[in-house]
């Protein structure tokens, strides 16, 4: 079954990805050139991550990955769909 962000294991893996791979600058740099290898080195199972999120992160520039790192753990919060009330 495909992993979604609402899945608890996926959320945990995503949280680990942010903490161990995106926040440390050297891991972030490594992830940009070798996503799968960097995840393995960080002890994160790529298959546990939501594939769409992994694909998005893998296609990002270093600057964009830095922006995600700046947002931090919030990206791993459980999904709740409500429209954007601030406009």
């Amino acid at each position, binding site marked *: 079954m495909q992993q979604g962000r609402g899945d608890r294991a996926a959320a945990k893996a995503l949280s680990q990805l942010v903490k161990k791979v995106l926040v440390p600058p050297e891991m972030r740099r490594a992830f940009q050139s070798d996503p799968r290898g960097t995840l393995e080195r960080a002890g994160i199972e790529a298959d546990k991550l939501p594939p769409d999120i992994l694909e*998005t992160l893998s*296609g990002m*520039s270093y600057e*964009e990955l830095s922006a995600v790192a700046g947002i931090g753990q919030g*990206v791993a919060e459980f*999904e709740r769909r409500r*429209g*954007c009330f*601030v406009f």
Partner: protein
Amino acid sequence: MFRVLADSESERLRAKIDLVQPVLWSAEERLLTHPRIAELYPHYLFLCHCIVRASVPLMETARRRVEELSATSDSVAGLDTYLERHELEERDHDTWLLEDLESLGIPRSSILRRPPTATVAGLVGAQYYWILHYHPIALLGYMAVLEWNPPSLEDIDDLVERTGHPRAAFRTLIEHAELDPTHAQELQEMINGLRLNPEQSTLMGLSAMHTVAALAAACEELTQRLPRSGGGGI
């Protein structure tokens, strides 16, 4: 490398927004479910006014930059026409918000006198920086966050009921819910019609993610104005 499924520019941008959007949803959830949301609602409208009053000036600034860049390799064909049309669609929405606030008995003079927060200045100001000092394509990332995910009328009805405020105070929010699906479609088509280089694509993503983070921070500030229980005024 992982395979990248998103095969259009708008899909790639949407995927980046979706990645960070939970931060904004969580912040909005805390705001909208606040037990004193009725008291916070006028402050929420003030926040929206601070943002919306900058919409048309931002688009005008971006359009002028597009025109300046038209003879250079940074040219983005069609963006100026799109912005000019969208300026007309967004015009006077800030006045609607002032009218919504007046329906709550809050005079517009008091709203216009109140200083916008540093968070809002950072949200909107970043766009001016990117437009004036790098490339106006940044603004499309900002607009995508604001327009691609409007609230449902059902959620607005729920908010009307929980605040107990007159429906007139929700006019802008309702219009936003009704108009933005069309605006979102137009923006998506616009983005898909652009031929962006990797740097421009990165900028659009950066701008969108910065917008999400700044909006979330603005919502958190608003939520923290009042304790969730007990007394304490603004």
